[in-house]
């Protein structure tokens, strides 16, 4: 379980760094709002969610955007949706 989460965290971090290459994985606080720590505008954010969809097969309805605030929220969401096999 922890390994799964750590593996997933590494994958999601790679997707994030594809959009914001300057992000230092060690410098990111997983519990704090992501978009205030990393300079992501709405286009970056959308591209990040698109890459989650394309690489990890996660479908994120627009209504759920508000739930994705911190890096941990993103991991929880992905684990939850893949857990359901969606």
């Amino acid at each position, binding site marked *: 379980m922890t390994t799964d989460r750590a593996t997933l965290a590494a994958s999601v971090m790679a997707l994030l760094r594809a959009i914001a290459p300057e992000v230092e994985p060690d410098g990111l606080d997983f519990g704090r709002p992501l978009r205030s720590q990393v*300079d992501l505008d*709405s286009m970056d954010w*959308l591209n990040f969610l698109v890459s989650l969809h394309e690489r990890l097969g996660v479908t994120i309805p627009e*209504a759920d955007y508000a739930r994705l605030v911190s890096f941990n929220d993103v991991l929880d969401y992905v684990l939850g949706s893949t857990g359901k096999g969606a």
Partner: protein
Amino acid sequence: MISFKLPSLGADMTEGTLLTWHVKPGDNVKRGQVVAVVDTSKAAIDVEIWQDGVVHELLVAPGEKVPVGTVLATLREPGDADATVAEVPAKTSASTVDPAPVAIAPAAAPAEPAVAAASDRQQAMRQAIAAAMSRSKREIPHYYLTETIPMQVATTWLLQRNGALPITERILPAALLLKAVAVALKRTPELNGLYLDGQFQPGAAVHAGVAISLRGGGLVAPAILEVQSKPLPQLMRELSDLVKRARAGSLRSSEMSDATITITNLGDQGVESVLGVIYPPQVALVGFGSILVRPWVLDGVVSAQPVVRATLAADHRVSDGHRGALFLAELRDLLQQPQLLAAAFTPTDSQKGDKA
């Protein structure tokens, strides 16, 4: 024989460094094909050719810095050999343009040889922006207008539309605003075009320069071409693609030189409004702030509504406040009818039975 020359890539560009050739002698090239990458000392730009042909000889080697107008390569006509020398620059309208226009800035430096170090780029970009903006303020008698536009209808429409679609097809408000500007400009063509040699030349189409901030500072304003005639989903894809490529430093020469108006959207930074500086030789700049929920009075009743501040900076040599106000009013009205914007000016759709 055709001479392929280094074009002026919109900016106050006087020279460029050839980074890479994508073609070699004997290759067939097609109109619009990217044949070389040129570093303008501010950005690495993919340079397109605007004529079919066969590459005859490459005259400039990677790493060489040459002035604008230098023949980079010669080409043979598609059919045959040694015709007379024709002058065919890379596809750009800016080769005929006054040589100190748009502030373009360095895209984040790709890992190529001969590209200036990041700090040099940063400095060169600041200087380029400063030069273009100083020229703008010196030469263009700006006037500024502001309009608060209710966005309840538009945001509700977007939410409903996006709700039914996969994430790759969802549309951000920025794309809708872009489309609205292009359609609104139909009524006030004197805001769309270039001021050259003491005269205004109206744009035949709306090529919207989109101000894109770069990671690490600076901005570029590459153009989305023919915005008025593109359907909304296509505009969204192009906008998304343009942002990605601008930040990765892979813009094309035609995008760097053809803008007829600039749109800046600072909404993501949370500001209420932005009053922009016009990019010469353009004559107007449209700015948008954040879409914010604010008290709004309708029929004597106050309610909380999303609104956006739209601003216009325009050139008094070409238009005046009255015409500018008409443009903003049109923009406001169009944004109350997003479904019409989505359908507006899409030739393929209208051919399929929509009323013109």
